[in-house]
């Protein structure tokens, strides 16, 4: 079994609870897979396990930026030398130099270990990115597992997927010898098809290391996505992030988000941040909503939420917030919402949506009491919430007297 628990604990036992660490054990090296962590160049190497899956994923391409260029080895045999940032392209149908490894997961097929090493001793790979080998289209590639053994910061923007270029739908784990990756920008692990259609990609991704980003620049973590990883650890994201829209959305396996020394006080866009995170149990207490203006679909259809009372009272500029379920996916673990009584709520209707939540009458009345007075036909939607049917005319009048429509 991959010792991911120890990897995680290396990031700081005091920082991550054992409970969290146990969540990391969700991924084990599938039986029969070669251990790509062996023979990696300590502090300088990136190893991949990749397959064509019997021709389903015919190509693999990538670039690495490193002073002096890089070399690629396949199953321990040198495949080629490349200048820094030059592309290594593999067409599996024409590759026969090594036999590879017979594996049975995700299906009976052949996999190869691809080693990426700097050519110069001491040089460090500072950017890695998959690339399309085909001339056009979205090329699906067959990376199963990526392992980093780096002592330096790395840029992984669009590392394993590019919206209209390539993606790695089979990838199960991205691991690091240190248990964390020092990233200089938001890493690209997985993506979605056009218009977020049902083409959910990288649904098998169960593990990513802690993302440590003390030097990161750029403000957007929009739609970062972490596959189905049950635990996502973000470290040292400070003084940069303003856009967390969709950061965890559609991560059906996500149970826990751990923020270590992260400052979200500048994040204004929280739209869809936890949309369809059906396994998520709670919202990080470390979130700072001081700059939040947009929180549409912030918590939606998160049916595993437990006793969650969300306090966004610091968000004095909030225009819209949605924390709701549906009749089919009620979000009963959501118990309360505390807002800022001076927030403008000038977003699209419904400006507040707590439908199909576990908010009882007292919680709804408390929300009504905190509503600001508005003048643009703002809507507070409470349809199907636990206490909706218990509200009295006097309760509803608290909201309507301030200009709100309560849709129940």
């Amino acid at each position, binding site marked *: 079994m991959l010792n991911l628990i120890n990897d995680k604990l290396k990031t700081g036992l005091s920082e991550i609870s054992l409970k969290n660490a146990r969540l990391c054990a969700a991924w084990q090296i599938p039986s029969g897979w070669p251990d790509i962590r062996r023979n990696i160049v300590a502090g300088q190497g990136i190893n991949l396990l990749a397959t064509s899956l019997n021709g389903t994923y015919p190509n693999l391409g990538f670039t690495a930026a490193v002073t002096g260029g890089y070399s690629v080895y396949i199953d321990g045999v040198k495949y080629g030398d490349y200048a820094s940032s030059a592309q290594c392209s593999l067409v599996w149908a024409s590759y026969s130099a090594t036999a590879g490894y017979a594996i049975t997961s995700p299906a009976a097929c052949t996999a190869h270990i691809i080693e990426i090493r700097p050519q110069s001793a001491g040089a460090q790979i500072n950017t890695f990115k998959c690339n399309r080998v085909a001339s056009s289209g979205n090329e699906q590639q067959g990376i199963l597992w990526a392992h980093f053994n780096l002592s330096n910061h790395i840029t992984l923007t669009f590392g394993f997927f590019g919206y209209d270029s390539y993606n790695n739908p089979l990838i199960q784990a991205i691991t690091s010898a240190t248990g964390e990756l020092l990233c200089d920008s938001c890493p690209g692990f997985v993506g979605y098809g056009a*218009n*977020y*259609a049902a083409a959910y990609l990288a649904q098998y991704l169960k593990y990513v290391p802690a993302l440590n980003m003390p030097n990161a620049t750029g403000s957007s973590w929009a739609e970062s996505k972490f596959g189905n990883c049950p635990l996502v650890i973000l470290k040292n994201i400070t003084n940069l992030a303003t856009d967390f829209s969709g950061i965890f*959305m559609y991560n059906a396996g996500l149970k826990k988000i751990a923020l270590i020394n992260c400052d979200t006080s500048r994040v204004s866009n929280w*739209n*869809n941040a936890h*949309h*369809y995170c059906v396994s998520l149990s709670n919202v990080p207490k470390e979130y700072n909503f001081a700059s939040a203006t947009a929180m*549409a*679909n912030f918590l*939606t259809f998160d049916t595993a939420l437990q006793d969650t009372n969300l306090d966004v009272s610091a968000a004095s500029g909030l225009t819209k917030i*949605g924390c*709701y379920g*549906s*009749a089919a996916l009620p979000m009963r673990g959501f118990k309360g919402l505390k807002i800022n009584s001076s927030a403008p709520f000038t977003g*699209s*209707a*419904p400006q507040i*949506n707590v*439908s*199909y939540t576990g908010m009882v009458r007292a919680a709804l009345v408390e929300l009504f009491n905190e509503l600001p007075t508005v003048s643009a*036909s703002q*809507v507070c*939607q409470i*349809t*199907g919430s636990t206490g909706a049917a218990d509200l009295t005319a006097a309760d*509803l009048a608290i*909201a*309507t*007297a301030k*200009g*709100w*429509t*309560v*849709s*129940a």
Partner: protein
Amino acid sequence: MYFKIFEAADGGYKDAAGKTYNLVGCNNAYTPKGKNEGWTQYADEAAAAVVFGITPSEQTPKADAI
């Protein structure tokens, strides 16, 4: 159920001109002007959408769909 449409840049519906909307439905709407004032009753969301002349837009998440 009672329904009302609201213009919304991130709305889950669009009209023939491409303008996007949220279609909000509920059992009852308690408005400052009275119960269900300004809201219209339809059998379901699909029926309301037909009358309002809107169709689901392809963008997801479908904002505020209930």
